[in-house]
């Protein structure tokens, strides 16, 4: 029953969010700010995580593929596929749910408890549209870019570690990277990313928007936003994989 009530409230909030912005110029400015805050500010974290994930994946593959009958180029192939199919879109989404999601929940939650959202409503501004819409749109625009960067850096990390440690000869690693490349896998990853971007921003915004109380509740909303987003990302990952790959 509570789940249905929450779903209803979430749907109503989303209906309120997706309307025509009050003023195009203000909306565009907010969109640019959000792209900067949600996307560009996350670039450093995404880059570091991706390089290390790619490197570790390559090392682990090398450890497990010691059989001389298995071509070493498979290490590069497996690293590429792991990064494109799962690590970049899903792992990065989980990490962004923590970073971006908690940021959104706490920002909107604080505005709620400090009556700033009431102030917007009293002025006649659709507060959900003004606050949430630019965040969702910004994430839909910038997250695919972050994920493509993550894929490239992850594979790059694998190449660098092969160069540094010699677990696989770099030309062989590159051969694996180029082996049987399927553009559809990148498209699949980007489709997942769009869903994840929507989940992270809308769920976190919902939690923040419905905060009541004080600082303690803002913290709780933030945690709820991250936990719910993460669970939904994993469920959606499973559903989309079944629908698109199998």
């Amino acid at each position: 029953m509570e789940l249905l009530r929450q779903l209803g409230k979430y749907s109503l909030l989303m209906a309120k969010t997706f309307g025509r912005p009050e003023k195009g110029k203000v909306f565009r400015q907010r969109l640019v700010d959000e792209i900067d805050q949600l996307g560009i500010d996350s670039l450093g974290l995404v880059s570091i995580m991706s390089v290390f994930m790619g490197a570790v994946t390559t090392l682990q593959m090398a450890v497990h593929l010691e059989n001389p009958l298995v071509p070493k180029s498979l290490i590069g192939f497996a690293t590429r596929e792991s990064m494109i199919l799962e690590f970049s879109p899903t792992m990065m989404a989980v990490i962004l749910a923590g970073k971006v999601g908690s940021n959104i929940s706490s920002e909107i939650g604080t505005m709620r408890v400090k009556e700033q959202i009431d102030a917007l409503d009293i002025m006649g501004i659709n507060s959900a549209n003004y606050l949430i819409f630019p965040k969702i749109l910004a994430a839909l625009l910038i997250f695919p870019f972050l994920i493509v960067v993550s894929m490239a850096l992850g594979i790059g990390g694998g190449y660098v570690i092969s160069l540094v440690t010699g677990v696989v000869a770099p030309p062989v690693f590159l051969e694996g990277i180029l082996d049987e490349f399927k553009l559809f896998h990148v498209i699949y990853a980007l489709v997942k990313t769009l869903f994840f971007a929507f989940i992270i921003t809308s769920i976190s915004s919902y939690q923040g928007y419905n905060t009541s109380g004080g600082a303690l509740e803002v913290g709780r909303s933030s945690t709820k936003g991250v936990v719910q987003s993460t669970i939904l990302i994993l469920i959606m990952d499973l559903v989309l994989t079944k629908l698109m790959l199998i």
Partner: protein
Amino acid sequence: MIEIKNINKGFNGVEILKGISNTFEEGKLNLIIGKSGSGKSVLTKCIVGLHEVDDGQVIYDGEVFSDMSRKERKEIRKDIGMLFQAGALFDSLSVEENVMFPLKMFTDMSHEEMLERANECLNMVDIVNKNKLLPSETSGGMQKRIAIARAIAMKPKYLFADEPNSGLDPQTAILVDNLLKKITYELNTTTIVITHDMNSVMEVGDNIMFIHEGQKWWSGNKKSILNTNNKILDDFVYASEFMKQLKGRLS
């Protein structure tokens, strides 16, 4: 002028407001007073439309606001200015951006015109050379005054203030009260102030409504409030030692 007729409001089966009716006059400071938890804030939120009334009507200059849709209310909302208890200034915007915010959203003014209007409002509340500061870099009293400047930026017809001098020192509290008085008389606004501060009541109370346990208990002005022979109201008015002494002197 704002009229409320037979307002009822409850939450989760608990009745908070019980059939409150009143008229808030234009060009006057209309005070809503009462103990904490008496329903003052809920009533104000019902009047400005942050809460929907369960029953009754809220009428702004003949237009039934409570029956309007969100879109229909928009025009009236542009004429409403509100000062929240904690100011509710936007943390990420500077002082001048806060004041310019409603102008940016609802007018086609150029940046220079908006800035001029913002400075005009900030001068009115005696805030100078603080334009570029963030709200967090200003004092509590200043934040209240900046919030007043933002509330009057659109030259509102209706001004609401929720406990405007809570948390302020006595001098700043009087300054804020006098500012509200000045704005009300100069702009001829219908001003509604929620307070439980008797200093404010005696300073600016043109019309006063006392709420007790969600009901309108008494209404009058700052002179008549001192002699009501109403025990519950007297307990509220003469709660402080100073007011008790004043009562002694008056009698």
